[in-house]
């Protein structure tokens, strides 16, 4: 396959060529999906340096496991799962190093979100897409790792409860509880941003 062929080939053909050892085909796949993989790592870690390192590690793992890719999902989705798992491993390592805080224990039991009154006003109503993205990003950055991860997996990766439980290595009940409080906390943060804007 020539360079021109690589740039015009579909992911499927590039994966097949890469599975036979074609490094140029793999380079093309990296070029196409590098931003998406980095963005997912950054959204979970909220740290540029860690996100670059983890996305790089994900690509090396992707090359090593390429023969396991059967094409059941798209190549981009498969690579995203790899980087998510690496980020979760990294977050678990960091959590082990942290002392068990009250905040960490509140992930499932709710903490302050438990007493929060229901918002009767939509905090994002009338916002333009760019502004909405910015606010969502700001609010997501303030969530705990556990709350952020469950939201990313459910809302951005569109995973079902069962898949999330498997990925996060916890029960479906824990996923449901974390998701509920993550949503409530996010709503409150978005409301704060709305108030600060006024």
């Amino acid at each position, binding site marked *: 396959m020539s360079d021109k062929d690589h740039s015009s080939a579909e992911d499927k053909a590039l994966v097949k060529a890469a599975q036979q050892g074609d490094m140029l085909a793999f*380079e093309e796949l990296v070029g196409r999906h590098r*931003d998406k993989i*980095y*963005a997912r790592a950054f959204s979970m870690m909220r740290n540029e340096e860690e996100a670059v390192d983890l996305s790089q590690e994900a690509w090396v793992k992707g090359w090593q496991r390429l023969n396991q890719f059967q094409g059941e999902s798209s190549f981009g989705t498969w690579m995203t799962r790899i980087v998510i798992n690496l980020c979760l491993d990294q977050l678990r390592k960091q959590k082990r190093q942290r002392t068990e805080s009250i905040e960490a224990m509140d992930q499932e039991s709710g903490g302050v979100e438990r007493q929060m009154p229901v918002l009767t006003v*939509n*905090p994002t109503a009338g916002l333009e897409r760019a502004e*909405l993205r*910015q606010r969502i990003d700001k609010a997501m950055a303030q969530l705990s790792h556990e709350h952020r991860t469950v939201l990313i997996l459910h809302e951005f990766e569109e995973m079902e409860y069962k898949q999330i439980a498997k990925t996060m290595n916890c029960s479906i009940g824990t996923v449901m509880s974390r*998701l509920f409080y993550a949503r409530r906390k996010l709503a409150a943060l978005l409301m704060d941003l709305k108030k600060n804007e006024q």
Partner: protein
Amino acid sequence: MEHDNELKLQAYLDGELPEAEAREVLKWLAHDQEAVLLQAELKNTRQALAGAERLIQLPESREFFWSKIERDISRVERTEPAQSKESFFAPWRRLLVPVSAAAVLGIVILSVLGPMSSSSMAENEVSSEDDTGFVYRDDTTGTTMVWLSYPAENEVANQEPATKL
């Protein structure tokens, strides 16, 4: 509202409830204002997130990023053959270590018990009564066998072929 009901409401919103339970939630929403408000809040948050992920670009050029990946792949592939060589011997090591340990243990037991159990060791005994006979005794079966060589085998062997019987 009970937490289980809050979670049920959320599961209904996410389409994770079986049809029968979803119908129950619908009935419940028809007469519970608190549930209606909570459902609206959860729905708003969910809708705000849909497609609102910040678009981020890798802060490194394609060439530089790829060069790091390529270098890591080469490094990993260089170390893999050594690992696979090691893994070839690993099963042997796993097999030989316990066998060796058992052998050493056996030797130790025998060396400790050996002098004390001389009577049991006498079950099988070969003794030479004199130069021309051997006795084999097996106490477990109560067998005693005696070999007598007369004339001595060596003497027969030294005799002339013509006289050999």
